[in-house]
C-alpha cells in the first residue's frame, strides 16, 4: 500500500488521461475546448492535492523510486506546467484538425513520465521514464501533420532524440558493467569507498549518459534541435518542452550528478563548467538575429539551460537550491510568455515579432504579460527571474572563493545578461514603442485571463517575496549531501 502512496499522483493523472480517451471514443463531446478547460481544472486540483502528500525517507520499489522533498518539488512543478499547458491546448484546439482529446491525453501521459522522472533513483527507471516523455513528445511535436514546419520539428526531434536515447542506454551499460549496480545510492557508496581515479570505462559510460541528458536540457553541443523544434511544434507543445521537458532534464541531471556521481565530482565538474559557459554564449548570441518569437524563445531556452548549468557546476548547496529556484520561477515566466503568444497568434496568425507591434495598445493585459515575462527572462528586478539569476551568480562566486577560475564563468554569465537584455527588449520595443498596422483590439477569453493573471502575480510575487519558493527549493536541495 505504501508503494501505491508513492505513485498516487502518477496513477491519478494516467487514469484521468485514459478516462478522457475512453469517453471521447464512445461518446464524443462536441465542445473540445471545454474538455480542455475541464482537464486543466482537474490537474490544477491534483496540484493542490499534491501539497497534502508528505515526503518519505525510504525509497520504494527496491530502491528505484524516491518520494523525497526533491521529488515532490518537481512533481508540483510538472503538475503546474501540465495544468497551464492544457489551458493553452484548449485555446489552441481550433487549430488542431483532428484528435483534440488525444492531444490532451498525450500531454497528460507525457506528464506522467515527468512525474516518474522526479522520483528516479535508478538508471533503469531513468531510461524508462525518459522514453515515456520523449516518445510522446515526438508525436506531439508533429501533431499539426499538414504543416511542414511541424513535421520537420517532429522528425528532427525524433532522429536526434533516438540517437541521444541510444547513447544513454549504452552509457548505462558501461556503468553497470564497471560497477555492477544501476542504483544511485549504491553507486555513490561504491564510488565513495573506491580510492584513486575511476576506471576509464566508467568515465566513458558517464559521459554517454551525460550526452543523453545534455540533449534533454539542450546544452551545447547537443542544442541544435531546440530552435527548429521550438519554432515548428504546436505552441502548447513548445511551452511544454520549455517548461516541463527542460525541468525533467535538470531533475535527472541533478539526481545523477549529485546523488550518484558526487564522489567523482572532480571528473565532471570542469566539463560542466565549460559547457555552461559555451551554452550561455551560444543561446544568447544565437537569439540576437531572430525575428520569430518561438525561435527566439528556443535560443533563449538554450541560454537559460546554460545559466542553470552554472549552478550545477558550482557543486555547492547554494547552487543546487539556485537551480531548483530558477526552474520554479522559469516555469511561471515561460508559461506566461507562451500564454500571451497563443492568445496573440490566435488573432494575428503569425509568430513573427513585428506582428506583436503595438500589442500594449491592442490588448493591455497581453502586452503587459509578454513584456513582464521578457523582463523576467532577462533578469530584471522586481521580477522573479532576477532573484533566480542572482542566486546562480552567488553560487558561482561562492565557488570562486576556493577556485578563482570560476570568476571567468561569472564574467561570461554577466556579459550574456547584457546581450540577452538586448533581444528581450527587442520584443519589448515591438510591444510598447512601435505602432501596430492593424490596431484592432485582441480578445482574451476568461480562462486565459485567469492563467495570465496567475502567472503575472507569481512572477512579481516571487520577485519581491522570494522566501516561500526559496525555502521550498532549499529544503528540496537538502536531499543531496552538498556543502
Amino acid at each position, binding site marked *: 500500500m505504501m508503494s501505491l502512496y508513492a505513485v498516487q499522483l502518477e496513477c491519478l493523472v494516467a487514469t484521468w488521461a485514459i478516462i478522457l480517451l475512453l469517453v471521447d471514443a464512445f461518446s464524443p463531446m462536441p465542445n473540445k475546448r471545454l474538455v480542455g478547460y475541464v482537464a486543466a481544472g482537474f490537474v490544477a486540483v491534483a496540484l493542490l492535492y499534491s501539497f497534502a502528500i508528505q515526503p518519505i525517507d525510504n525509497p520504494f520499489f527496491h530502491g528505484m523510486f524516491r518520494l523525497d522533498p526533491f521529488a515532490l518539488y518537481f512533481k508540483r512543478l510538472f503538475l503546474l506546467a501540465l495544468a497551464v499547458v492544457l489551458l493553452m491546448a484548449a485555446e489552441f484546439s481550433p487549430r488542431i484538425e483532428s484528435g483534440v482529446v488525444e492531444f490532451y491525453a498525450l500531454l497528460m501521459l507525457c506528464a506522467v513520465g515527468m512525474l516518474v522522472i522526479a522520483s528516479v533513483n535508478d538508471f533503469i527507471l531513468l531510461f524508462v521514464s525518459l522514453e515515456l516523455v520523449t516518445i510522446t513528445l515526438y508525436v506531439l511535436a508533429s501533431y499539426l501533420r499538414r504543416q511542414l514546419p511541424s513535421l520537420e520539428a517532429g522528425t528532427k526531434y525524433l532522429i536526434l532524440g533516438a540517437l541521444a536515447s541510444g547513447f544513454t542506454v549504452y552509457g548505462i551499460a558501461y556503468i553497470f558493467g564497471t560497477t555492477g549496480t544501476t542504483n544511485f545510492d549504491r553507486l555513490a557508496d561504491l564510488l565513495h569507498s573506491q580510492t584513486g581515479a575511476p576506471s576509464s570505462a566508467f568515465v566513458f559510460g558517464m559521459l554517454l549518459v551525460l550526452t543523453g541528458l545534455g540533449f534533454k536540457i539542450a546544452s551545447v553541443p547537443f542544442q541544435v534541435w531546440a530552435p527548429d523544434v521550438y519554432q515548428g511544434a504546436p505552441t502548447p507543445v513548445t511551452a511544454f518542452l520549455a517548461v516541463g521537458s527542460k525541468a525533467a532534464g535538470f531533475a535527472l541531471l541533478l539526481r545523477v550528478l549529485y546523488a550518484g556521481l558526487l564522489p567523482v565530482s572532480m571528473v565532471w565538474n570542469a566539463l560542466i563548467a565549460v559547457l555552461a559557459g559555451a551554452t550561455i554564449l551560444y543561446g544568447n548570441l544565437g537569439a540576437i538575429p531572430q525575428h520569430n518569437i518561438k525561435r527566439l524563445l528556443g535560443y533563449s531556452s538554450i541560454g537559460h539551460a546554460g545559466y542553470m548549468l552554472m549552478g550545477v557546476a558550482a557543486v555547492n548547496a547554494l547552487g543546487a537550491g539556485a537551480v531548483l529556484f530558477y526552474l520554479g520561477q522559469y516555469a511561471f515566466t515561460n508559461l506566461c510568455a507562451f500564454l500571451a503568444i497563443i492568445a496573440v497568434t490566435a488573432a494575428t496568425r503569425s509568430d513573427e515579432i513585428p506582428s506583436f507591434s503595438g500589442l500594449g495598445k491592442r490588448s493591455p493585459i497581453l502586452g503587459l504579460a509578454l513584456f513582464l515575462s521578457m*523582463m523576467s527572462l532577462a533578469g*530584471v*528586478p*522586481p521580477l522573479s527571474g*532576477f532573484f533566480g539569476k*542572482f542566486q546562480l*551568480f*552567488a553560487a558561482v*562566486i*561562492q565557488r*570562486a*572563493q576556493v577556485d*578563482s577560475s570560476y*570568476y571567468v564563468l*561569472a*564574467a561570461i554569465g*554577466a*556579459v550574456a*545578461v*547584457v546581450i540577452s*537584455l*538586448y533581444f528581450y*527588449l527587442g520584443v*519589448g*520595443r515591438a510591444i*510598447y*514603442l512601435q505602432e501596430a498596422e492593424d490596431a484592432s483590439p485582441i480578445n482574451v477569453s476568461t480562462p486565459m485571463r485567469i492563467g495570465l493573471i496567475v502567472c503575472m502575480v507569481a512572477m512579481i510575487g516571487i520577485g519581491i517575496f*522570494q*522566501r516561500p519558493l*526559496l*525555502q521550498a527549493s*532549499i529544503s528540496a536541495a537538502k536531499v543531496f549531501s552538498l*556543502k
Partner: protein
Amino acid sequence: MDTLLTIAVLLPLVAAFVLFLFPANNPRAIRALALFATGVSLLITLTLFANFDRTKSGYQFVHRIPWLPSYGCSLKFGVDGISMTLLLLVGFVSFCGTMISSEIHDREKEYYILFLALTTGISGTFCTMDLFFFYFFYEMAVIPMYLLIGMWGSLPPGKHGRTKEYATMKLTLYLTAGAVLALIGLLAIYFAGGTLDIEQLQHNVVLARTTQHIAFPCLLFGFGFLASLWPFHTWSPLGYAAAPTAASMMHAGVLKKLGAYGIIRLALPLLPDGARHWANLLAILACFNILYAGWVALTQRDWKFVIGYSSVSHMGYIFLGIATLNVVGVSGAVLLMFAHGVMAALTFSLIGFFYHQTHNRFVPDLSGLARKIPFIGVCMVMAVMASSGLPGFANFASEVLVFLGSWQQGSTLFHVATICAVWGIVVTATYLLWAVRMSFFGPFDEKWSMLKDAVSFKQKFPYALLLAVLLTVGFYPRVLTDIIKQSVATSVVSRLSVSPETNTAMVDTAYRNGAKP
C-alpha cells in the same frame, strides 16, 4: 520616527501599485496621486532632515525588516550624512519632475507608474543598508528609464543620425553592463565578508588583499558606467537628449549620482587597499571626463546635448573628489553630487519648458527668447551661473572643496589634475554662456512670438523651488557640509587607512564566516 524613512522610500512604489488599479481615463486623479506620493515623500524627507542628529556619526532612522534569513538579508533602511543629502536631492527632483510632467498627455497612467517606480528605485538605493537590496533597487531603476525614454521621448534628427529607440537601448545596455559588473564585485564582498549588512561590513570586516584587488575594479567600473566615467560615458548625452523632460531631470539629476554614491559608500570603505591602488587611475580618468567632455560640449548645437556633455564633464569633478581619498575632497564630491543634481534638474526642466512650445532646441535657431519668456530666461541665466561655479550657488562651494582636497592630496599628479579641473571651469563657462547668449538674448526672432512664459504660481513653483535650494546651500553650505563631513570622516576616510596585513585576525573571522554564510 524610524518607520518614516521606510515610508518615504516605499511610498512612491506603493502609489505605483495603486495607480495600476486606477482607470486609465482619469488623468487628473492619476496626476494628483503621483503628486501626492512624491510630495509626501519630500515632506517626510524634510522632516527627517530637520530631526537629523548633527552631532552623531553613523546611521540614523534605522528600520529593519528581516527578509531572507538563509542569506542573512534584510530590508534595512537608514541614512547617514551622505545618504541624507542625496535623499533630499531625490525628494526635490522627483517632486519637481512630477509637477513638470503636466506636459505629458499620452498614456498618463503608464507614465506615472514608471516614474514612481523609478523614484523608489533611486531613493531605495540611497537608503538601503543591505547589499542585496542595494543591487535590487539599483537594477530596478533601469527598465522604467528604458520605457520612459522609448515611449515619451523625442530625439530631433541631427548629425548623429540616431533614433530615440537607439538612444534608449544604448542607455539600458550600458547601465545593465555596469550593474552586472558591480554585482560580481558585490558578491565577492559578500562571500569574503560573510554578511550582506553594509554597516557590519564597514565596521567589523577587513577583506583580504586579493579580494580587494578583484572586487575594486568591478565596483569602480561597474558603478562608473552608471556615473558616466570616461570612456564609458557615450550613452549619457544621447540618452538625456532623447528623454522626456522629467526623465532627463531624474536621470541627470539623480540616477547618475547612484554610481558615484556606490563608489563612496561601498568601494572606498570596504576595499581601502583596492582604492589606494586605483586612485591615481581614477584621477586621470576624471581629468578626461572634465576636459574631453567639456571640449565635446563646445562643439554641440543642441541644447540637450550641450547640457548632457556638460553633466558628463561635471561628473569628472565628482570622480576627482573621490580619488583624493581625503575628507575635504570626498565631502566636496558628495556636496557636488547634490548641487549638480539640483542644477541639472533645473536646466533640463527649463529646456523642456521652451522645447515643449518651440519643438526646436537647436541653439542657433533660437534667438532673443528672453524677451518673450523672461521668467524662464532669468532662471536659465541663474542655472548657467550655478553651473559655471559662480559664488553664491551650491556648486561653487562644492567645487572649491574638490579643488582644495585635490591640492591637499599633495602628489604631482593631483596638482596637475587640479589645474586641469580649474581650467575645466573656464571651458564650462564658455559653452554655457555662448548657448544662453545665442538663444535668450540677441535680436528677437518673430517666429517665436507665440511663446508663453510661466505665469501661474503652479508653473513657476518647481523652477523657483530648485533655484531656492541652490541659493540656500550656496549661501549657507554648512547646512549640508557639517553632516557630510562627519559621515565622510567616520565611515569612509577613517576606513581607508585600514590595511589587510595589520588586521589579520579580522580577516580570519571574515573568512570563517564566508565559508558558510
